Protein backbone atom coordinates (compact mmCIF):
# COMPACT_ATOMS: atom_id res chain seq x y z
CA UNK A 1 0.00 0.00 0.00
CA UNK A 2 2.89 2.37 0.56
CA UNK A 3 4.58 1.79 -2.74
CA UNK A 4 7.70 -0.34 -3.16
CA UNK A 5 9.03 -2.18 -0.15
CA UNK A 6 12.69 -2.33 0.68
CA UNK A 7 14.22 -5.80 0.36
CA UNK A 8 14.47 -6.03 4.13
CA UNK A 9 10.78 -5.24 4.55
CA UNK A 10 9.99 -7.86 1.92
CA UNK A 11 11.74 -10.51 3.99
CA UNK A 12 9.81 -9.38 7.07
CA UNK A 13 6.46 -9.48 5.24
CA UNK A 14 7.09 -12.91 3.70
CA UNK A 15 8.37 -14.24 7.03
CA UNK A 16 5.30 -12.97 8.87
CA UNK A 17 2.90 -14.34 6.26
CA UNK A 18 4.62 -17.71 6.30
CA UNK A 19 4.49 -18.01 10.10
CA UNK A 20 0.81 -17.08 10.03
CA UNK A 21 0.24 -19.73 7.40
CA UNK A 22 0.91 -22.54 9.86
CA UNK A 23 -2.20 -22.17 12.04
CA UNK A 24 -4.34 -21.68 8.92
CA UNK A 25 -3.15 -24.77 7.11
CA UNK A 26 -2.53 -27.03 10.03
CA UNK A 27 -6.04 -28.02 11.21
CA UNK A 28 -7.03 -28.97 7.66
CA UNK A 29 -3.79 -30.92 7.21
CA UNK A 30 -4.41 -32.59 10.57
CA UNK A 31 -7.94 -33.58 9.56
CA UNK A 32 -6.87 -35.14 6.27
CA UNK A 33 -3.76 -36.95 7.56
CA UNK A 34 -5.41 -38.20 10.75
CA UNK A 35 -8.24 -39.69 8.74
CA UNK A 36 -5.79 -42.08 7.05
CA UNK A 37 -3.94 -43.08 10.24
CA UNK A 38 -4.76 -46.10 12.38
CA UNK A 39 -6.80 -44.84 15.35
CA UNK A 40 -4.00 -45.43 17.86
CA UNK A 41 -1.73 -43.08 15.91
CA UNK A 42 -4.30 -40.26 16.02
CA UNK A 43 -3.68 -40.03 19.75
CA UNK A 44 0.08 -40.61 19.58
CA UNK A 45 2.03 -38.29 21.83
CA UNK A 46 3.95 -36.38 20.63
CA UNK A 47 1.50 -35.97 17.71
CA UNK A 48 2.50 -37.40 14.35
CA UNK A 49 2.59 -34.56 11.83
CA UNK A 50 3.22 -36.90 8.91
CA UNK A 51 1.50 -40.29 9.20
CA UNK A 52 3.90 -43.20 9.63
CA UNK A 53 1.35 -45.94 8.95
CA UNK A 54 -1.67 -45.83 6.69
CA UNK A 55 -5.09 -47.29 7.36
CA UNK A 56 -7.58 -46.63 4.59
CA UNK A 57 -10.18 -49.08 5.86
CA UNK A 58 -11.73 -46.19 7.79
CA UNK A 59 -13.11 -44.78 4.57
CA UNK A 60 -14.92 -48.01 3.81
CA UNK A 61 -16.35 -48.07 7.33
CA UNK A 62 -17.86 -44.62 6.85
CA UNK A 63 -20.08 -46.11 4.16
CA UNK A 64 -20.82 -49.30 6.15
CA UNK A 65 -21.94 -47.61 9.36
CA UNK A 66 -24.26 -45.12 7.74
CA UNK A 67 -25.91 -44.64 4.35
CA UNK A 68 -23.17 -42.13 3.63
CA UNK A 69 -23.54 -42.14 -0.15
CA UNK A 70 -27.23 -41.36 0.25
CA UNK A 71 -26.40 -38.59 2.74
CA UNK A 72 -23.89 -37.19 0.28
CA UNK A 73 -26.55 -37.08 -2.38
CA UNK A 74 -29.01 -35.43 0.04
CA UNK A 75 -26.60 -32.62 0.83
CA UNK A 76 -25.67 -32.16 -2.81
CA UNK A 77 -29.15 -32.01 -4.29
CA UNK A 78 -30.60 -29.86 -1.50
CA UNK A 79 -27.76 -27.36 -1.87
CA UNK A 80 -28.18 -27.36 -5.67
CA UNK A 81 -31.94 -26.69 -5.54
CA UNK A 82 -31.55 -23.99 -2.89
CA UNK A 83 -28.77 -22.33 -4.88
CA UNK A 84 -30.73 -22.23 -8.14
CA UNK A 85 -33.88 -21.02 -6.37
CA UNK A 86 -32.06 -18.30 -4.49
CA UNK A 87 -30.22 -17.10 -7.59
CA UNK A 88 -33.52 -16.87 -9.45
CA UNK A 89 -35.50 -15.08 -6.74
CA UNK A 90 -32.75 -12.77 -5.57
CA UNK A 91 -31.91 -11.64 -9.09
CA UNK A 92 -35.58 -11.00 -9.92
CA UNK A 93 -36.30 -9.10 -6.72
CA UNK A 94 -32.94 -7.32 -6.87
CA UNK A 95 -33.67 -6.24 -10.46
CA UNK A 96 -37.14 -5.03 -9.55
CA UNK A 97 -35.81 -2.94 -6.67
CA UNK A 98 -33.06 -1.51 -8.85
CA UNK A 99 -34.96 -0.75 -12.05
CA UNK A 100 -38.71 -0.97 -11.86
CA UNK A 101 -40.46 2.06 -10.43
CA UNK A 102 -43.44 1.30 -8.25
CA UNK A 103 -45.19 2.85 -5.24
CA UNK A 104 -43.71 2.24 -1.77
CA UNK A 105 -40.55 0.79 -3.31
CA UNK A 106 -38.33 2.00 -0.47
CA UNK A 107 -40.73 0.87 2.22
CA UNK A 108 -40.93 -2.57 0.66
CA UNK A 109 -37.18 -2.75 0.39
CA UNK A 110 -36.80 -1.91 4.08
CA UNK A 111 -39.27 -4.69 4.91
CA UNK A 112 -37.24 -7.12 2.84
CA UNK A 113 -34.07 -6.04 4.62
CA UNK A 114 -35.78 -6.69 7.93
CA UNK A 115 -35.84 -10.32 6.83
CA UNK A 116 -32.09 -10.32 7.50
CA UNK A 117 -32.90 -9.97 11.17
CA UNK A 118 -35.16 -13.00 11.23
CA UNK A 119 -32.78 -15.93 10.77
CA UNK A 120 -34.26 -19.40 11.12
CA UNK A 121 -32.36 -19.73 14.40
CA UNK A 122 -34.97 -17.33 15.79
CA UNK A 123 -38.02 -18.80 14.09
CA UNK A 124 -37.14 -22.47 14.37
CA UNK A 125 -40.03 -23.22 16.78
CA UNK A 126 -42.86 -21.80 14.63
CA UNK A 127 -41.21 -23.24 11.51
CA UNK A 128 -41.32 -26.66 13.13
CA UNK A 129 -44.98 -26.17 13.95
CA UNK A 130 -45.78 -25.04 10.40
CA UNK A 131 -43.97 -27.94 8.75
CA UNK A 132 -45.45 -30.38 11.25
CA UNK A 133 -48.95 -29.30 10.26
CA UNK A 134 -48.00 -29.71 6.59
CA UNK A 135 -46.72 -33.24 7.29
CA UNK A 136 -43.24 -32.23 6.17
CA UNK A 137 -41.23 -33.08 9.28
CA UNK A 138 -38.54 -35.67 8.50
CA UNK A 139 -38.55 -34.64 4.83
CA UNK A 140 -36.15 -32.36 2.99
CA UNK A 141 -38.82 -29.76 2.27
CA UNK A 142 -38.02 -27.46 5.22
CA UNK A 143 -34.33 -27.42 4.25
CA UNK A 144 -35.27 -26.38 0.71
CA UNK A 145 -38.27 -24.08 1.20
CA UNK A 146 -37.02 -21.92 4.06
CA UNK A 147 -33.60 -20.88 2.71
CA UNK A 148 -34.77 -20.16 -0.86
CA UNK A 149 -36.05 -16.81 0.29
CA UNK A 150 -34.91 -16.76 3.91
CA UNK A 151 -32.44 -14.48 5.65
CA UNK A 152 -29.40 -15.41 3.47
CA UNK A 153 -31.38 -14.73 0.27
CA UNK A 154 -32.37 -11.34 1.58
CA UNK A 155 -28.68 -10.61 1.66
CA UNK A 156 -28.43 -12.00 -1.88
CA UNK A 157 -31.23 -9.70 -3.03
CA UNK A 158 -29.38 -6.75 -1.55
CA UNK A 159 -26.18 -7.76 -3.37
CA UNK A 160 -28.03 -8.14 -6.70
CA UNK A 161 -29.83 -4.81 -6.29
CA UNK A 162 -26.58 -2.99 -5.61
CA UNK A 163 -25.03 -4.60 -8.66
CA UNK A 164 -27.93 -3.80 -10.98
CA UNK A 165 -27.99 -0.18 -9.80
CA UNK A 166 -24.32 0.16 -10.69
CA UNK A 167 -24.90 -1.12 -14.26
CA UNK A 168 -25.34 1.56 -16.94
CA UNK A 169 -29.00 1.94 -17.72
CA UNK A 170 -28.43 3.04 -21.36
CA UNK A 171 -28.09 -0.50 -22.73
CA UNK A 172 -31.45 -1.49 -21.35
CA UNK A 173 -33.04 1.71 -22.62
CA UNK A 174 -31.71 1.10 -26.10
CA UNK A 175 -33.15 -2.41 -26.01
CA UNK A 176 -36.47 -1.01 -24.92
CA UNK A 177 -36.53 1.41 -27.83
CA UNK A 178 -35.92 -1.62 -30.03
CA UNK A 179 -39.15 -3.01 -28.62
CA UNK A 180 -37.88 -5.61 -26.19
CA UNK A 181 -40.11 -6.34 -23.18
CA UNK A 182 -38.91 -6.22 -19.60
CA UNK A 183 -38.54 -9.98 -19.35
CA UNK A 184 -36.37 -10.13 -22.43
CA UNK A 185 -34.27 -7.18 -21.27
CA UNK A 186 -33.79 -8.81 -17.88
CA UNK A 187 -32.91 -12.20 -19.30
CA UNK A 188 -30.76 -11.24 -22.28
CA UNK A 189 -29.10 -8.00 -21.12
CA UNK A 190 -29.18 -7.33 -17.37
CA UNK A 191 -28.69 -10.88 -16.11
CA UNK A 192 -25.64 -11.73 -18.25
CA UNK A 193 -24.02 -8.45 -17.18
CA UNK A 194 -24.61 -9.29 -13.55
CA UNK A 195 -22.79 -12.60 -13.81
CA UNK A 196 -20.06 -11.77 -11.24
CA UNK A 197 -22.61 -10.88 -8.56
CA UNK A 198 -24.72 -13.87 -9.49
CA UNK A 199 -21.67 -16.11 -9.17
CA UNK A 200 -20.91 -14.77 -5.71
CA UNK A 201 -24.51 -15.28 -4.64
CA UNK A 202 -24.41 -18.84 -5.98
CA UNK A 203 -21.20 -19.70 -4.18
CA UNK A 204 -22.31 -18.36 -0.83
CA UNK A 205 -25.75 -19.86 -1.02
CA UNK A 206 -24.28 -23.26 -1.84
CA UNK A 207 -21.83 -23.07 1.07
CA UNK A 208 -24.55 -21.95 3.43
CA UNK A 209 -26.81 -24.83 2.50
CA UNK A 210 -23.97 -27.38 2.51
CA UNK A 211 -23.03 -26.32 6.06
CA UNK A 212 -26.55 -26.02 7.47
CA UNK A 213 -26.68 -27.73 10.85
CA UNK A 214 -29.48 -26.57 13.16
CA UNK A 215 -32.28 -27.14 10.63
CA UNK A 216 -31.31 -30.74 9.76
CA UNK A 217 -30.97 -31.79 13.38
CA UNK A 218 -34.36 -30.28 14.15
CA UNK A 219 -36.27 -31.57 11.14
CA UNK A 220 -34.65 -34.89 10.20
CA UNK A 221 -34.71 -38.05 12.26
CA UNK A 222 -33.96 -41.00 9.98
CA UNK A 223 -30.33 -41.59 8.92
CA UNK A 224 -31.09 -42.07 5.22
CA UNK A 225 -32.48 -38.51 5.15
CA UNK A 226 -29.58 -36.89 7.02
CA UNK A 227 -27.33 -34.29 5.45
CA UNK A 228 -23.54 -34.49 5.72
CA UNK A 229 -22.84 -32.17 8.68
CA UNK A 230 -25.54 -33.95 10.64
CA UNK A 231 -24.25 -37.41 9.70
CA UNK A 232 -20.70 -36.48 10.67
CA UNK A 233 -21.30 -36.42 14.39
CA UNK A 234 -23.34 -39.63 14.39
CA UNK A 235 -20.36 -41.95 14.15
CA UNK A 236 -20.32 -43.07 17.77
CA UNK A 237 -19.69 -46.43 19.41
CA UNK A 238 -22.17 -48.34 21.57
CA UNK A 239 -21.30 -46.17 24.57
CA UNK A 240 -21.84 -42.90 22.74
CA UNK A 241 -18.12 -42.18 22.43
CA UNK A 242 -17.00 -40.63 19.16
CA UNK A 243 -15.23 -42.93 16.67
CA UNK A 244 -12.62 -40.34 15.87
CA UNK A 245 -10.94 -41.90 12.86
CA UNK A 246 -14.31 -42.44 11.19
CA UNK A 247 -15.56 -38.96 12.04
CA UNK A 248 -12.38 -37.52 10.58
CA UNK A 249 -12.72 -39.55 7.38
CA UNK A 250 -16.31 -38.36 7.05
CA UNK A 251 -15.26 -34.78 7.86
CA UNK A 252 -12.58 -34.97 5.18
CA UNK A 253 -15.06 -36.21 2.61
CA UNK A 254 -17.47 -33.41 3.57
CA UNK A 255 -14.82 -30.73 3.25
CA UNK A 256 -12.95 -31.98 0.17
CA UNK A 257 -15.50 -31.12 -2.55
CA UNK A 258 -15.84 -27.57 -1.24
CA UNK A 259 -12.08 -27.20 -0.93
CA UNK A 260 -11.54 -28.46 -4.49
CA UNK A 261 -14.14 -26.06 -5.85
CA UNK A 262 -12.47 -23.31 -3.86
CA UNK A 263 -9.02 -24.10 -5.27
CA UNK A 264 -10.38 -24.16 -8.81
CA UNK A 265 -12.53 -21.05 -8.50
CA UNK A 266 -10.72 -19.06 -5.82
CA UNK A 267 -10.84 -15.93 -7.92
CA UNK A 268 -14.64 -15.99 -7.99
CA UNK A 269 -14.80 -16.78 -4.28
CA UNK A 270 -12.59 -13.92 -3.22
CA UNK A 271 -13.42 -11.30 -5.84
CA UNK A 272 -17.08 -12.21 -5.75
CA UNK A 273 -17.11 -11.56 -2.05
CA UNK A 274 -15.26 -8.31 -2.52
CA UNK A 275 -17.91 -7.22 -5.04
CA UNK A 276 -20.79 -7.92 -2.73
CA UNK A 277 -22.38 -5.59 -0.30
CA UNK A 278 -19.69 -2.98 -0.29
CA UNK A 279 -20.17 -1.17 -3.52
CA UNK A 280 -23.15 0.99 -4.12
Amino acid sequence: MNGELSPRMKVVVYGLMSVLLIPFVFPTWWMVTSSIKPISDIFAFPPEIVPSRLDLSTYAKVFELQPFAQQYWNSAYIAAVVTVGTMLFSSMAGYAFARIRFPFANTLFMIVLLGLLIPSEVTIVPLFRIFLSWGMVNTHWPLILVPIFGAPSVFATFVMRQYFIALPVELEEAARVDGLGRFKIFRTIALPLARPALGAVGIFTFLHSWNLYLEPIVFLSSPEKFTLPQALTQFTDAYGGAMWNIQLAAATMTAIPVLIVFIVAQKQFIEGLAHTGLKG
Partner: protein
Amino acid sequence: MASTIKRQQLQIRLIFLGIPLAWLVVFVVSPIFLIFYLSFTDYNILSPAQMIGTLNYEDLWFDSLFWKATWNTFFYTVVSVPLGIVFSLLLAVLVNRRLPGAALYRSIFYIPVVTPLVAVSVVWILIYQTSNGLANYVLSWINVPPQQWLTSSTLAMPSIIVMSIWKGLGFNMVIFLAALQAIPRELHEAAWVDGAGRFRSFFSITLPLLRPAMIYVVVTSIISSFQVFTQVFVMTEGGPNNATVTLVHLIYRTAFLNLDMGYASAMAMLLFVLLVATSLTSFWLMSRNNYYA
Protein backbone atom coordinates in the same frame (compact mmCIF):
# COMPACT_ATOMS: atom_id res chain seq x y z
CA MET B 1 -50.57 0.33 -26.78
CA ALA B 2 -50.47 2.29 -23.53
CA SER B 3 -52.75 -0.19 -21.84
CA THR B 4 -50.69 -3.19 -22.89
CA ILE B 5 -47.58 -1.53 -21.48
CA LYS B 6 -49.45 -0.91 -18.24
CA ARG B 7 -50.60 -4.51 -18.08
CA GLN B 8 -47.15 -5.77 -18.85
CA GLN B 9 -45.68 -3.63 -16.10
CA LEU B 10 -48.19 -4.93 -13.61
CA GLN B 11 -47.34 -8.50 -14.60
CA ILE B 12 -43.66 -7.80 -14.16
CA ARG B 13 -44.13 -6.36 -10.71
CA LEU B 14 -46.26 -9.30 -9.69
CA ILE B 15 -43.75 -11.85 -10.87
CA PHE B 16 -40.46 -10.15 -10.04
CA LEU B 17 -41.56 -8.95 -6.62
CA GLY B 18 -44.76 -10.77 -5.82
CA ILE B 19 -43.36 -14.29 -5.73
CA PRO B 20 -40.25 -13.51 -3.68
CA LEU B 21 -42.21 -11.28 -1.31
CA ALA B 22 -44.95 -13.84 -0.79
CA TRP B 23 -42.23 -16.40 -0.08
CA LEU B 24 -40.63 -14.05 2.43
CA VAL B 25 -43.96 -13.48 4.18
CA VAL B 26 -44.75 -17.19 4.46
CA PHE B 27 -41.37 -18.50 5.62
CA VAL B 28 -39.72 -15.54 7.32
CA VAL B 29 -42.20 -12.88 8.43
CA SER B 30 -45.21 -14.94 9.46
CA PRO B 31 -43.16 -17.15 11.84
CA ILE B 32 -42.27 -14.02 13.81
CA PHE B 33 -45.96 -13.39 14.50
CA LEU B 34 -46.46 -17.03 15.34
CA ILE B 35 -43.53 -16.95 17.74
CA PHE B 36 -44.99 -13.86 19.42
CA TYR B 37 -48.25 -15.73 19.94
CA LEU B 38 -46.55 -18.95 21.09
CA SER B 39 -44.48 -17.05 23.64
CA PHE B 40 -47.70 -16.46 25.61
CA THR B 41 -48.68 -20.13 25.59
CA ASP B 42 -47.81 -23.45 27.12
CA TYR B 43 -47.16 -25.68 24.13
CA ASN B 44 -45.52 -29.07 23.82
CA ILE B 45 -46.49 -30.00 20.21
CA LEU B 46 -48.49 -33.03 21.31
CA SER B 47 -51.45 -31.06 22.67
CA PRO B 48 -52.79 -27.68 21.46
CA ALA B 49 -51.20 -24.50 22.77
CA GLN B 50 -52.73 -23.13 25.99
CA MET B 51 -52.77 -19.39 26.65
CA ILE B 52 -50.96 -18.65 29.89
CA GLY B 53 -50.45 -14.90 29.63
CA THR B 54 -47.03 -13.53 30.44
CA LEU B 55 -46.05 -16.52 32.59
CA ASN B 56 -43.20 -17.55 30.25
CA TYR B 57 -41.64 -14.10 30.46
CA GLU B 58 -42.02 -14.06 34.24
CA ASP B 59 -40.32 -17.43 34.44
CA LEU B 60 -37.50 -16.21 32.21
CA TRP B 61 -36.82 -13.37 34.60
CA PHE B 62 -36.05 -15.87 37.38
CA ASP B 63 -34.36 -18.47 35.17
CA SER B 64 -30.66 -18.42 36.00
CA LEU B 65 -29.86 -20.72 33.04
CA PHE B 66 -31.44 -18.23 30.64
CA TRP B 67 -29.36 -15.39 32.10
CA LYS B 68 -26.29 -17.56 31.90
CA ALA B 69 -26.97 -18.26 28.22
CA THR B 70 -27.55 -14.54 27.59
CA TRP B 71 -24.34 -13.66 29.39
CA ASN B 72 -22.40 -16.34 27.45
CA THR B 73 -23.76 -15.05 24.14
CA PHE B 74 -22.77 -11.51 25.08
CA PHE B 75 -19.36 -12.64 26.23
CA TYR B 76 -18.83 -14.53 22.98
CA THR B 77 -19.88 -11.46 20.95
CA VAL B 78 -17.96 -8.87 22.94
CA VAL B 79 -14.74 -10.88 22.79
CA SER B 80 -14.88 -12.46 19.34
CA VAL B 81 -16.14 -9.48 17.29
CA PRO B 82 -13.43 -6.91 18.22
CA LEU B 83 -10.61 -9.45 18.21
CA GLY B 84 -11.76 -10.90 14.91
CA ILE B 85 -11.90 -7.43 13.37
CA VAL B 86 -8.47 -6.35 14.60
CA PHE B 87 -6.80 -9.55 13.41
CA SER B 88 -8.54 -9.64 10.04
CA LEU B 89 -7.64 -5.99 9.42
CA LEU B 90 -4.00 -6.66 10.28
CA LEU B 91 -4.05 -9.67 7.98
CA ALA B 92 -5.59 -7.60 5.18
CA VAL B 93 -2.96 -4.88 5.55
CA LEU B 94 -0.26 -7.55 5.52
CA VAL B 95 -1.39 -9.27 2.29
CA ASN B 96 -2.37 -6.03 0.54
CA ARG B 97 0.89 -5.76 -1.39
CA ARG B 98 1.94 -6.30 -4.93
CA LEU B 99 4.32 -9.10 -4.04
CA PRO B 100 4.63 -12.32 -5.98
CA GLY B 101 2.73 -15.06 -4.17
CA ALA B 102 0.56 -12.69 -2.11
CA ALA B 103 -2.55 -14.09 -3.79
CA LEU B 104 -1.58 -17.60 -2.73
CA TYR B 105 -1.24 -16.54 0.91
CA ARG B 106 -4.59 -14.78 0.64
CA SER B 107 -6.25 -17.97 -0.59
CA ILE B 108 -4.70 -20.05 2.16
CA PHE B 109 -5.92 -17.65 4.85
CA TYR B 110 -9.35 -18.18 3.33
CA ILE B 111 -9.36 -22.00 3.62
CA PRO B 112 -11.00 -22.14 7.09
CA VAL B 113 -13.90 -20.04 5.77
CA VAL B 114 -14.85 -22.64 3.18
CA THR B 115 -14.29 -25.67 5.41
CA PRO B 116 -17.61 -26.85 6.88
CA LEU B 117 -18.02 -25.72 10.49
CA VAL B 118 -18.93 -29.18 11.76
CA ALA B 119 -15.80 -30.72 10.21
CA VAL B 120 -13.71 -27.92 11.71
CA SER B 121 -15.29 -28.45 15.13
CA VAL B 122 -14.47 -32.17 15.08
CA VAL B 123 -10.81 -31.44 14.29
CA TRP B 124 -10.54 -28.78 16.98
CA ILE B 125 -11.95 -31.18 19.59
CA LEU B 126 -8.87 -33.31 18.89
CA ILE B 127 -6.53 -30.33 18.97
CA TYR B 128 -8.00 -29.33 22.33
CA GLN B 129 -7.69 -32.81 23.93
CA THR B 130 -6.23 -32.53 27.42
CA SER B 131 -3.95 -35.55 27.58
CA ASN B 132 -2.66 -35.83 24.00
CA GLY B 133 -3.96 -32.86 22.05
CA LEU B 134 -1.85 -30.69 19.84
CA ALA B 135 -2.52 -27.44 21.74
CA ASN B 136 -1.06 -28.87 24.93
CA TYR B 137 1.83 -30.39 23.01
CA VAL B 138 2.81 -26.99 21.62
CA LEU B 139 2.50 -25.46 25.09
CA SER B 140 4.77 -28.17 26.50
CA TRP B 141 7.62 -26.74 24.40
CA ILE B 142 7.56 -23.67 26.61
CA ASN B 143 6.92 -25.71 29.77
CA VAL B 144 3.28 -24.76 30.23
CA PRO B 145 1.38 -27.58 32.00
CA PRO B 146 -1.50 -29.22 30.07
CA GLN B 147 -4.72 -27.16 30.02
CA GLN B 148 -8.27 -28.53 30.05
CA TRP B 149 -9.33 -26.53 27.02
CA LEU B 150 -12.87 -27.80 26.60
CA THR B 151 -13.46 -29.47 29.95
CA SER B 152 -12.83 -26.61 32.36
CA SER B 153 -15.63 -24.13 32.81
CA THR B 154 -13.26 -21.16 32.68
CA LEU B 155 -11.42 -22.17 29.51
CA ALA B 156 -14.21 -23.77 27.44
CA MET B 157 -15.77 -20.55 26.13
CA PRO B 158 -12.42 -18.85 25.35
CA SER B 159 -11.36 -22.03 23.49
CA ILE B 160 -14.51 -21.94 21.38
CA ILE B 161 -13.96 -18.23 20.73
CA VAL B 162 -10.39 -18.82 19.53
CA MET B 163 -11.59 -21.48 17.11
CA SER B 164 -14.42 -19.26 15.82
CA ILE B 165 -12.14 -16.27 15.28
CA TRP B 166 -9.73 -18.49 13.34
CA LYS B 167 -12.62 -19.77 11.21
CA GLY B 168 -13.91 -16.32 10.28
CA LEU B 169 -10.72 -14.28 9.83
CA GLY B 170 -10.39 -14.91 6.10
CA PHE B 171 -13.92 -13.70 5.37
CA ASN B 172 -13.46 -10.29 6.97
CA MET B 173 -9.93 -10.08 5.59
CA VAL B 174 -11.27 -10.20 2.03
CA ILE B 175 -13.80 -7.46 2.73
CA PHE B 176 -11.15 -5.21 4.25
CA LEU B 177 -8.84 -6.03 1.38
CA ALA B 178 -11.40 -4.86 -1.19
CA ALA B 179 -11.86 -1.63 0.76
CA LEU B 180 -8.11 -1.11 1.11
CA GLN B 181 -7.59 -1.52 -2.61
CA ALA B 182 -10.22 1.10 -3.32
CA ILE B 183 -8.20 3.75 -1.47
CA PRO B 184 -6.33 5.90 -4.02
CA ARG B 185 -2.55 5.61 -3.65
CA GLU B 186 -2.18 9.35 -4.12
CA LEU B 187 -3.62 9.95 -0.67
CA HIS B 188 -0.83 8.00 0.97
CA GLU B 189 1.77 9.58 -1.27
CA ALA B 190 0.52 13.04 -0.37
CA ALA B 191 0.68 12.16 3.32
CA TRP B 192 4.19 10.87 2.78
CA VAL B 193 5.23 14.15 1.20
CA ASP B 194 3.73 16.00 4.15
CA GLY B 195 5.98 13.97 6.42
CA ALA B 196 3.46 11.48 7.85
CA GLY B 197 4.89 8.08 8.80
CA ARG B 198 3.29 4.72 8.14
CA PHE B 199 1.38 4.65 11.41
CA ARG B 200 0.13 8.20 11.12
CA SER B 201 -0.91 7.50 7.54
CA PHE B 202 -2.78 4.34 8.63
CA PHE B 203 -4.68 6.01 11.44
CA SER B 204 -5.43 9.30 9.67
CA ILE B 205 -6.16 8.08 6.15
CA THR B 206 -6.70 4.34 5.91
CA LEU B 207 -8.86 3.81 8.97
CA PRO B 208 -11.35 6.65 8.30
CA LEU B 209 -11.75 5.52 4.68
CA LEU B 210 -12.40 1.95 5.83
CA ARG B 211 -15.43 3.12 7.77
CA PRO B 212 -18.15 1.68 5.47
CA ALA B 213 -16.41 -1.70 5.33
CA MET B 214 -15.89 -1.53 9.07
CA ILE B 215 -19.58 -0.89 9.77
CA TYR B 216 -20.55 -3.72 7.45
CA VAL B 217 -18.16 -6.15 9.13
CA VAL B 218 -19.21 -5.08 12.63
CA VAL B 219 -22.92 -5.53 11.87
CA THR B 220 -22.62 -8.91 10.15
CA SER B 221 -20.24 -10.19 12.83
CA ILE B 222 -22.55 -9.16 15.64
CA ILE B 223 -25.62 -10.65 13.97
CA SER B 224 -23.88 -13.96 13.34
CA SER B 225 -22.33 -14.19 16.79
CA PHE B 226 -25.74 -13.72 18.40
CA GLN B 227 -26.69 -16.93 16.57
CA VAL B 228 -23.68 -19.02 17.55
CA PHE B 229 -24.77 -22.64 17.86
CA THR B 230 -23.00 -25.29 15.79
CA GLN B 231 -19.54 -25.18 17.37
CA VAL B 232 -21.04 -25.11 20.87
CA PHE B 233 -23.34 -28.00 20.11
CA VAL B 234 -20.62 -30.15 18.57
CA MET B 235 -17.66 -29.30 20.81
CA THR B 236 -19.08 -28.99 24.32
CA GLU B 237 -22.88 -29.48 24.15
CA GLY B 238 -23.11 -26.34 26.28
CA GLY B 239 -20.95 -27.81 29.05
CA PRO B 240 -19.04 -28.09 31.24
CA ASN B 241 -21.53 -26.94 33.85
CA ASN B 242 -23.38 -24.80 31.25
CA ALA B 243 -20.30 -22.65 30.76
CA THR B 244 -20.84 -22.55 26.99
CA VAL B 245 -24.64 -22.57 26.69
CA THR B 246 -25.67 -19.87 24.23
CA LEU B 247 -29.12 -18.46 23.48
CA VAL B 248 -29.73 -20.46 20.30
CA HIS B 249 -28.43 -23.59 22.00
CA LEU B 250 -30.79 -23.04 24.94
CA ILE B 251 -33.71 -22.38 22.57
CA TYR B 252 -32.92 -25.65 20.78
CA ARG B 253 -32.69 -27.61 24.06
CA THR B 254 -35.83 -26.10 25.53
CA ALA B 255 -37.91 -26.57 22.40
CA PHE B 256 -36.75 -29.91 21.04
CA LEU B 257 -35.33 -31.83 24.01
CA ASN B 258 -37.65 -30.59 26.78
CA LEU B 259 -40.55 -29.98 24.34
CA ASP B 260 -41.28 -26.69 26.08
CA MET B 261 -42.04 -24.74 22.92
CA GLY B 262 -43.87 -21.82 24.51
CA TYR B 263 -40.98 -21.11 26.82
CA ALA B 264 -38.48 -21.46 23.97
CA SER B 265 -40.57 -18.98 21.94
CA ALA B 266 -40.31 -16.41 24.70
CA MET B 267 -36.51 -16.79 24.58
CA ALA B 268 -36.51 -16.52 20.79
CA MET B 269 -38.63 -13.38 21.01
CA LEU B 270 -36.02 -11.77 23.24
CA LEU B 271 -33.23 -12.86 20.88
CA PHE B 272 -35.16 -11.24 18.04
CA VAL B 273 -35.51 -7.99 19.99
CA LEU B 274 -31.76 -8.06 20.65
CA LEU B 275 -31.02 -8.54 16.95
CA VAL B 276 -33.35 -5.74 15.89
CA ALA B 277 -32.03 -3.31 18.51
CA THR B 278 -28.42 -3.94 17.54
CA SER B 279 -29.07 -3.72 13.83
CA LEU B 280 -31.23 -0.61 13.96
CA THR B 281 -28.44 1.11 15.83
CA SER B 282 -26.05 0.19 13.04
CA PHE B 283 -28.50 1.08 10.24
CA TRP B 284 -28.74 4.45 11.92
CA LEU B 285 -24.96 4.73 11.89
CA MET B 286 -24.89 3.85 8.19
CA SER B 287 -27.62 6.22 7.06
CA ARG B 288 -26.05 9.03 9.06
CA ASN B 289 -23.09 8.79 6.73
CA ASN B 290 -25.06 8.13 3.58
CA TYR B 291 -22.63 5.50 2.31
CA TYR B 292 -25.28 3.03 1.29
CA ALA B 293 -28.07 5.18 -0.03
